């Protein structure tokens, strides 16, 4: 190795670590601040200088969050919407991906190009008519209004199609000779063989739905239908409107919104980063 003889190697490494540690501070302090503020009693929220580590710890804010504000309800709403959206996307996009990757039919490639072309449309363009359609269907302030527009995704079809294309065609042919129909091949061979791609898509759909703000903002009309993200936005707005922001309470709400995503992230990190990198390379 030529590089190890470089006399600048060691100082460069040290500079590297210094940069990384500085960036780590910038990245992590806001999260530490969020958690520590949420554990603080209301009286010490505004101490100066600001304390990163609270001297006094209380869970009062969390208690308040689930008793005085319907955050439990928001949580259930978000869970329902996310679970059904993710399941819907997995089913609908994997079916379509199998069709596009492994079946022949008239107009298939043209149709696929049409699908891909819709990815170029920014969501703002279709947002207003989408709202009017959901309104016309009578789905405002309902779960189906929150869920159904999101149960398919062209990006997901694209992602799974790429993965399905990588399965050797021998598997498909062998199953056909054994008399398996296409659905059986899809269900018994393609889904089990493409676990990582399906996981990546599930993680993507989960993240996108759990943290979506704009669509719930339009569809949920009453507090009972709000999602966590929307609940937090309203909560923050009403808290600042009266100029007496209860920081520990708002931060506790932020923790509740973020915790499930962070927990899943730490366990399924691979799929998050893979998915992001993939969307970057291919989109």
């Amino acid at each position, binding site marked *: 190795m*030529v590089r190890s003889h470089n006399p600048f190697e060691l100082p460069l490494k040290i500079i590297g670590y210094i940069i990384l540690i500085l960036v780590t501070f910038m990245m992590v302090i806001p999260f530490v601040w969020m958690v520590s503020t949420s554990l603080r009693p209301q009286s010490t929220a505004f101490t100066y200088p600001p304390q990163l580590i609270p001297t006094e710890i209380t869970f009062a804010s969390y208690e308040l969050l689930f008793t005085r504000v319907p955050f439990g309800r928001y949580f259930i709403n978000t869970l329902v919407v996310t679970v059904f959206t993710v399941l819907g996307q997995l089913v609908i996009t994997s079916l379509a991906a199998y069709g596009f990757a492994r079946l022949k*039919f008239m107009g298939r490639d043209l149709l696929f190009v049409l699908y891909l072309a819709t990815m170029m449309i920014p969501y703002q363009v279709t947002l207003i*008519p989408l709202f*009017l359609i959901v309104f016309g269907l009578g789905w405002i302030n309902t779960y189906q209004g929150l869920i159904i527009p999101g*149960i*398919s995704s062209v990006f997901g079809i694209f992602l799974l199609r790429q993965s399905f294309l990588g399965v050797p065609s021998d598997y498909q042919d062998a199953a056909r000779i054994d008399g398996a129909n296409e659905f059986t091949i899809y269900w018994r061979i393609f889904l089990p063989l493409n676990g990582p791609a399906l996981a990546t898509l599930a993680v993507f759909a989960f993240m996108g739905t759990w943290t979506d703000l704009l669509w719930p903002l339009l569809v949920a009309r009453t507090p009972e239908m709000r999602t966590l*993200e929307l609940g937090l936005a309203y909560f923050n707005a009403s808290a600042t409107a009266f100029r007496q922001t209860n920081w520990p309470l*708002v931060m506790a709400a932020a923790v509740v919104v973020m915790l499930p*995503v*962070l927990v899943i992230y730490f366990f399924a990190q691979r799929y998050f980063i893979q998915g992001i990198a993939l969307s970057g390379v291919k989109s």
Partner: protein
Amino acid sequence: MATANRTQAGVDHYVPAKQSLWKRFWSRSNERVGYLFILPSLIHLIIFVIIPLVFSLYLSFTDWRGPNFQNAPFVGLDNYEFLLGDRRYWNAMRNTAWYTILSVPGGMIASLIVALVMNQKLRGVYIFRTLFFMPVISSWVAVSVIWITLLDPNAGILNYVLRQFGIPPVNWLGDPATAMPSIVLISIWKGLGFQMVIWLAGLQAIPQELHEAAAIDGATRLQSFLRITLPLLAPTTFFLAVTGVIGSFQVFSPVYVITQGGPRGSTEVVVYNIYQRAFEVFDMGYAAAQAWVLFGVIFLATLVQLWYRRRQGEEVLF
């Protein structure tokens, strides 16, 4: 077995030309299965994407007010004409451009520096990667409320740190001059991990031998970076720039949560303007026209990207 033979032997010439197109198509059971597989997604696409798209174009030519299907006179190009003179819209466009100019290069440079360090094969790098990626997966609303407190002029951490260096407190989100840069700062913070991962993928595609050869020829690290790394990163740079511009023109959540367009309209961006027009004053026809103009800007960026990828010899859509 007959079906198997048919699919293999060039389907188009098999069926006698006399049959109608419909019969020809329906007689192939294999094809019917194909349509069944894509049917759910196609129905979804038609109802929730294609129809809204056409509907949106129509809306932009009407004076549609209110969510009900009543009283929507066709006004031709009036909305677009009004838009040309709409100072609020162009203020929002200018703010969005300002946001883009600050956040895209800023984010790219910051994340490139971090990616270059991470690419040095330091120990424990994956721990840093995990941490840097946390903001990427966090929700915009949660991130926004955290930063509202961090940037608080009196009790916020940032002003506290600055005060240690003798810098007087800044009213970050309350001053029209600093509100947009603050939102840019938050966006860069949130997107750093994403851009870093993309940079890293680009960096790792560069063969190590090139740097070694350059070192043997006596090139310094800086020369090696400028002459080898940067040129070979061009596709990545281009990708991040274009997607960054597209994303920046669509910024909404931080503005909605943190500043609501204020102070004094200094953070009012295009999508926030569209949102207010459509869903706060229910001026939906005009808002649709605004959205189409935004689409035009974004489409330009997309075309540039397609052109570049074609030039690179890649197979692109059209």
